[in-house]
């Protein structure tokens, strides 16, 4: 076999251009003149870049870099942008700083503007625990009912949000269901008895004169109230309804009594602004008002 003749320049019949003369196992190249458009495109994109380099921070210079004529800094721009966002909604958001919840809730147009924002805040921050509609779930209380651990009026809710419950916040609300079993505060049989009493309370069949009622009065009423109706503002739930944080089966209640409970609600003071917290407080307070909220949109 002969070597391919080198530098044998042909003309390509299709394009009319000459080949370069190289031949790699049959592959050839055309010596097509350099397309002008590529030069233009390079020039154009380079011009764009050059303008950007002049205007924006761009080239490193050892220990410093060119700052650009516009003197931009992305952190400042973002902070300013955020400031502008805050200003754009300041006309209604700042109203929530007042904390006069009755007046705020009465202002229907204001609520119409604020509640979608509160709903988004709730979905991004609270729904993970309290559920998308605020109905809670195992370990996380229902916010859409009438029962409250600390109180359902917006002032109280706002304070709960600010400091949290059993949270890392220095002023946190603190509450604890003691571990009567684990800590040996009540013997087994009495725990069982008091558990049955709690069950009876919630179904409305409790006998106020039974020994278990005495046990309850001695051990539990200080937090849960005389008749288990809660509302003492110490974070202890109502026990006379069929709403449960940790479940209402006998086993669940026994577990609560044996191990105790100390649910944690995070504090939001450092994450949400005071106005956002107030907005949320109204939103949450509205969740419990039988649909007839006038608050929730």
């Amino acid at each position, binding site marked *: 076999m002969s070597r391919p003749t080198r530098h044998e320049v042909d003309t390509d019949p299709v394009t009319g251009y000459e080949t370069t003369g190289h031949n790699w196992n049959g592959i050839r190249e055309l010596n097509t003149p350099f397309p002008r458009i590529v030069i233009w495109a390079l020039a154009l994109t380079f011009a764009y870049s050059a303008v950007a380099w002049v205007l924006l921070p761009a080239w*490193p210079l*050892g*220990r*410093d*870099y060119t700052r650009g004529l516009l003197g931009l800094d*992305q*952190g400042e*721009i*973002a*902070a300013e*942008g*955020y*400031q*502008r*966002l*805050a200003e754009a909604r300041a006309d209604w958001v700042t109203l929530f*700083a007042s904390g006069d919840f009755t007046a705020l809730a009465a202002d229907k147009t204001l609520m119409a503007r604020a509640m979608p924002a509160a709903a988004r805040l709730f979905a*991004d*921050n609270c*729904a*993970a*625990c309290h559920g*998308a509609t605020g109905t809670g*779930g*195992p*370990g*996380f209380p229902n916010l859409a009912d009438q029962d409250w651990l600390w109180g359902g009026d917006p002032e109280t809710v706002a304070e709960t949000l600010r400091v949290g419950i059993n*949270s*890392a916040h220095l002023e946190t609300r603190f509450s604890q269901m003691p571990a009567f079993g684990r800590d040996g505060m009540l013997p087994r049989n009495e725990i069982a008895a008091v558990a049955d009493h709690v069950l009876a309370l919630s179904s409305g069949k409790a006998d106020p004169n039974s020994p278990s009622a005495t046990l309850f009065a001695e051990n539990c009423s200080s937090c849960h109230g005389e008749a288990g109706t809660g509302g003492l503002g110490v974070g202890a739930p109502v026990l006379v309804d069929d709403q449960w944080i940790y479940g209402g089966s006998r086993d669940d209640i026994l577990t609560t009594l044996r191990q105790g409970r100390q*649910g*944690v*609600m*995070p*504090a939001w003071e*450092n*994450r949400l*602004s*005071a*106005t956002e917290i107030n907005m949320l407080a109204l939103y949450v307070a509205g969740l419990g008002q039988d649909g007839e909220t006038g608050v929730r949109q």
Partner: protein
Amino acid sequence: MLKLHYNLEKVSLGMVAAIIVAALIGGAVEIAPLFTIDETVAIPDDLRPHTPLELAGREIYMREGCYACHSQMVRALADEIDRYGPYSLAGESAYDHPMLWGSKRTGPDLARLGDKYSDDWHVVHLADPRSVVPASIMPAYPWLTTSLDTENLSAQLATLARLGVPYSDEMIANAMRDALAQSRPDSDGAADVAARYGESVAIRAFDGNSSRLTEMDALVAYLQSLGTLTKAAHETLAPEATQ
């Protein structure tokens, strides 16, 4: 020019050299100054390194590929600040080998996650995300209940110390002990953890059971530490903007 190239094409080592030179320039210009320009990384005074338990959690985070769905980098954009909090600073990840900024948000950003949820919630969520967030598409991680292997922690801290992370000899020597103590608030070692790593470190039975040190403890400790290693980022936003 064309002639020059025409000749270069005939010399394979010439092509090799030219390729290397052409390819080196960009990286050199962009990477080297990141070490020489001081303002690139301002290490905040209050920045602390991860505790051994958090470090172990970080490795679980990497092992499970959480970074495939979660970023840890709030970009300097107004809407991101609005949703997630202050934008991330270079200093915040100055001790991270490797960084875990991520490139995809199938799930939300986690840079400001610490203290957002309770330990209990994390435990439930990781074991079965859909039990707390029905619409979630995050996988369940039920195997995190296995015991944590702390064997290697001292060696890991020592390795990181060689790379410039400020772990003292004392921290290195006590890594295993500290990992255990951080999950046992009532144990003797708990105060040592706080003494060594700072009062802001969370010392809790993260998985709700202080009798066993599990992978869940480590991962939750890590998640609760995100965004809490320094307060520097919170100072970037004017106070009135956050109110």
